[in-house]
């Protein structure tokens, strides 16, 4: 039975003001079940205030074999990091 259940990716917002983050994946037959399963698998220890689920097949991923052209050119460009700014202390989650 289980091999027929599609895979879903789970995103959880841990608290208001934060973004949804990828928590993991699970199996479910439909979106309603995916939400309920996500609630039971990933938020049973009070981890979240909001859940998104999306069927994994709808995620388009970059190809690891193209990592060279995609990511390596940025490695040598340290000046793109905004490390020269002073951030006020009140600013969090940057």
């Amino acid at each position, binding site marked *: *039975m*289980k091999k027929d*259940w599609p895979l879903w990716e789970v995103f959880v917002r841990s608290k208001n003001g934060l973004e949804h983050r990828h928590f993991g994946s*699970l*199996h*479910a*037959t439909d979106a*309603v*079940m995916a939400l*309920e*399963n996500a609630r*039971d*698998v990933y938020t*049973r220890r009070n981890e979240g205030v909001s859940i998104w689920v999306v069927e994994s097949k709808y995620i388009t991923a970059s190809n690891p074999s193209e990592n060279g052209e995609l990511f390596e050119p940025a490695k040598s460009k340290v000046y793109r990091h905004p490390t020269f700014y002073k951030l006020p202390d009140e600013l969090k989650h940057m």
Partner: protein
Amino acid sequence: MNNNNLYNYILGIADNTLILGQRLGELCGHGPALETDIALTNIALDLFGQTRSYFQYAALLVGDGKAEDDVAYMRTERNYFNVLLVEQPNTHFGYVMGRQFLFDVYHLLLLEGLQNSSDITLAAIADKGIKEVTYHKRFSGDWMKRLGDGTAESHQKMQEAIDDLWRYTDELFQLTKADKAMIYEGIGVDVSNFKEAYYQEVSEILNEATITVPENKYFTSGGKKGIHTEHMGYILADLQYMQRTYPNMKW
């Protein structure tokens, strides 16, 4: 003990959550899928949490240094007052969901009444449990529809499960001596009042799940009086083993 009726009334509620929790706990590690397994165990833990609150209160009434574990484990079969429905075995997943659903609808109606109890402890326990049980009902109700309106095989199994479990539903609404005494005092909930609402709500979900509502008018009961089905002895053997082997042990 002056509060014998109150004590028995609490057991009449808490033994249901204890035994159903125990039944669901048996499935830990055996659910049909990892996700469903965790969901059932979560429900079991919710039920045990509620049971503990009730038994802590019951132990206070007994006094004499008794604790929740004494109430939970140190009774003989005839002194457990859970309904027959919750002790029925985990025949298959559809059966487990059917049993859960038939209990959840009742359970939520009970807690909604109990939160208005003049006994503030019971009202507080009910108030805390309502959110948990609302989710239980949503979970089991969704599975009723998924299985009832699923494949030909899942439909047939769900129909057979409901046909089989139906006979235990009437007992939910029978009043015990303790029930009557506690209703009189404004503490207890008159469950016979929401029998109609229960069958209406259950029938609506069953219709949506394409399950035929059984017309069977033969009902069986006894659990509320301590007279159980043949399954109860095995449940208690499991449940009580540790306390009987190692008396007064604690986690």
